[in-house]
């Protein structure tokens, strides 16, 4: 991996930082449009064709707003945590093979799935710090809830995220994507569905919307942020959703590999990956639209009584099922 111009191009532009940013803004628009249509209304429509520039306009507006720091806030953490969480989420997205290989121009390494999950855990912790350093009761509550909910989904999420590697026989993101001759969503659907539930909790979307429940805690951990810092908090949220969709697409839908490839495969890889991301987002929004917000104790109870045992069971089931899965895909044992 040489540090020449191609490397920086990949990191900063495509499929690196700028690309991720654009995808995030696009997904933000897409989510809002899908959600609006499900609620029988229009969603963004007037900024740009079909309202596609709306997220861009929103962030430009936020960047130009006044940045107020509360008197009793922990200044350093308050200033740093939004950017830190944003950066960590973006970094975790870099490891996915967007155009066949990841941003660093290699096929990842064994265990980069675990690395990515660890980075995201850190990012959650920085979100907690952002709320905690705000010195505001609402933000404090939101921060506590983020950690409490974290306890409520993290274990099943990790178990389920690692399950595909039983079939792919690898913990490398690129290899998992590669080995999906039949997408794992169809091959091990029980893992897929449970994973979606756990993912919805990680993304803090309804029914697991608790940490930033706007009708309860104003804005949860983001209450005291304004202007640029708030823009970063929101961006972290959006990149987190993109990360979730990317992870799902990679682990269960075959990543960048699609059934049709004409000409240069790299463009097609990106195309299929983005298509799958959008598909996952539609599913997540559907779940969001039909659910009310569950209370924290409901989530915790559901986790320990249902999700953890069922996830373990599913994991074991997948391990036993693995030879049969290989047979279905026509792969030698």
């Amino acid at each position, binding site marked *: 991996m040489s540090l020449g111009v191609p490397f920086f191009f990949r990191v900063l532009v495509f499929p690196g930082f700028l690309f991720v940013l654009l995808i995030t803004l696009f997904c933000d628009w897409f989510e809002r449009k899908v959600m609006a249509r*499900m*609620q*029988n*209304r229009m969603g963004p429509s007037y900024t740009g064709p079909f309202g596609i520039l709306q997220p861009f306009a929103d962030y430009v507006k936020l960047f130009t707003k*006044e940045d*107020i720091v509360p008197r*009793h806030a922990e200044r350093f953490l308050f200033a740093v945590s939004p950017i830190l969480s944003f950066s960590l989420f973006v970094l975790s997205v870099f490891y996915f093979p967007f155009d066949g290989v990841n941003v660093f121009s290699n096929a990842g390494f064994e265990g980069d799935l675990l690395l990515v999950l660890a980075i995201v855990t850190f990012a959650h912790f920085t979100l907690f710090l952002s709320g905690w350093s705000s*010195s505001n*009761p*609402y933000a404090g*509550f939101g921060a506590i809830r983020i950690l409490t909910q974290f306890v409520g989904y993290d274990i099943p999420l990790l178990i389920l995220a690692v399950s595909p590697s039983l079939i792919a026989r690898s913990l490398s993101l690129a290899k998992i994507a590669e080995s999906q001759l039949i997408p794992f969503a169809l091959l091990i659907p029980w893992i897929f569905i449970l994973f979606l539930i756990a993912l919805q909790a990680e993304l803090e979307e*309804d*029914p697991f*919307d*608790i940490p930033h*429940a*706007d*009708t*309860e*805690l*104003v804005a949860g951990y983001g209450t005291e942020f304004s202007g640029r810092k708030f823009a970063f908090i929101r961006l972290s949220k959006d990149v987190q959703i993109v990360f979730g969709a990317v992870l799902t697409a990679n682990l269960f839908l075959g990543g960048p590999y699609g059934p049709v490839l004409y000409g240069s495969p790299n463009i097609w890889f990106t195309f299929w990956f983005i298509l799958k991301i959008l598909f996952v987002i539609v599913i997540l929004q559907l779940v969001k*639209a*039909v*659910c*009310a*917000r*569950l*209370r*924290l*104790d*409901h989530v915790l109870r559901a986790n320990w009584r249902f999700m953890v045992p069922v996830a373990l069971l599913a994991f074991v089931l997948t391990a036993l099922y693995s030879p049969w899965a290989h047979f279905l895909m026509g792969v030698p044992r």
Partner: protein
Amino acid sequence: MKPEEEVASLIQGKLQSSVIGVKTPGPRRADIMVKSGFHRDAVSVLLEGFPQTMISTITALDLGDEIELDYHFWCGRTEATIRTEVSKSRPEIETITDIIPGASLYEREVFDLLGVIFLGHPDLSRLVLPEGWPREQYPLRKDWSPELTERSGFSENKPVKVGTVWAGGGGGSLVSVVLGPQHPALHEPERFLFKLDGETVVDVEPRLGYAHRGIEKAAEQLMFFQDVHLVERVCGICNVAHSMCFCQAVESLGEIEVPARAEYLRTIVHELNRIHSHLLLLGIAGLEVGFESLFHYLWRDREIVLDLTERLTGNRVMAEFSTIGGVRRDLNPILANEIKKGLSVLKGRMRFYKKVFSVDPTFTARTMGIGVLKEHEALKLSVVGPIARGSGLEIDVRKHDPYAAYDEIPFEEVIYKEGDSWARLMVRLDEVAESIDVITHAVDNLPSGPYRIRVSRRMPESEALSRIEAPRGELLHFVRGNGTAYPERVKIRSPTLANIISFRQMIKGCYVADIPAVLASLDPCFSCTDRMAFVDVKDDRRWIWSMNEIKARRERKEP
């Protein structure tokens, strides 16, 4: 014996010489004047004779040298008023909150606005006026005018020190959280101070008055027929209820008989308003528990009702339909058909919503068993409307004290026994279905004849009380005339005032996350001015800043 005579004779029998005068001015109305000092006995007699007695409100009037106090109760199918007087120079009277706790807010209101001191009241603090209001100024007294307060130096733009808001102690682990006046969970401003232990609510103290606009005082400066429009604006959502109640009170005062067609038309608009209000609230309830889609769907279906109201009255929300002597517009057959068609579509939608509300697991998890108010508590606190009916109490003014066309239209009173937030929301849902039936029946059986009669502007020197079932509960208007075209006193008791006192009972032991759900099921309706309460975390001081102070601080930070 008629119910009002029963009540009157009971009190007269028990109190004998302490009773100065007894009147039964109409069906289900009784007025009993007692000697000063005997009001407590009268109230106790009522409670013993009729255990389901509930206090409606306490009206106070400035008579010059005396202040008259009217205690209005609903008991034994009669609205009974116990009347007594205190002298203005020493306006003290014993409280009745130990006998009937629901009277606490009404006594505070009288104390705040007229200066009557209720001895023995557990917490006689201001209810509606702001903290810095000068002590000796009582707006509802006849000798008060706004200039007096201005001259005394009171200005909204000065910061005011407020003492510790909490009367009780509180351990070190309890956290005080202020909710409001600006908060996404409230669609109108009010301040709640919650004491929390982790995520559990230990206690709450509401502070009202953010929406106080002095309408009762303003009503004395306008003529009766103008007051109809003023009173309508007490509440945007239940505006039909207020104007109708006021018109009924004035018609009772002037002994005016309203034509039958007008009664039916009033019923139609009243029920349309009820449907509108309930659909609005059900959407809000969905929003509060995080169910946005339900909110959008319900409000989309609400448009059916808004369009019908617009065609009938000329405006989507502010109907301005009732007037003294009848209604202002007629219903033509084409519109009558449209109403029936639109409502039958809505009825189908309500079946869908009923299923969702009853069966959806996330929704029921957030509302079933949450914010329980037991039946005996509801009775003691004298709550009204869907909150009472959700706890099993049978109090629907339309059924038990019929007005307008309700004695001729068959409908069911909706009662749920569970007493939780879910029950309260289901009461409203079922009431929408009932209202649709009522309107259809009224439209089909509309009597012919005039829809309005012209009345004189002057009203006799008398008084009248009118109760109706607003969407949120029992609404009471008490009007006293003095022979001119201007009222002597207009007293309005809106249902939320009766219900807010139950919030404390409901929320104890619930989680913070339940607060919006319970509040939404309460359906509070207040409106307001601008204030922010500050709690300094370091030394637990509390004070209130005015808008100017806030602006001043902001400017200091700008580079």
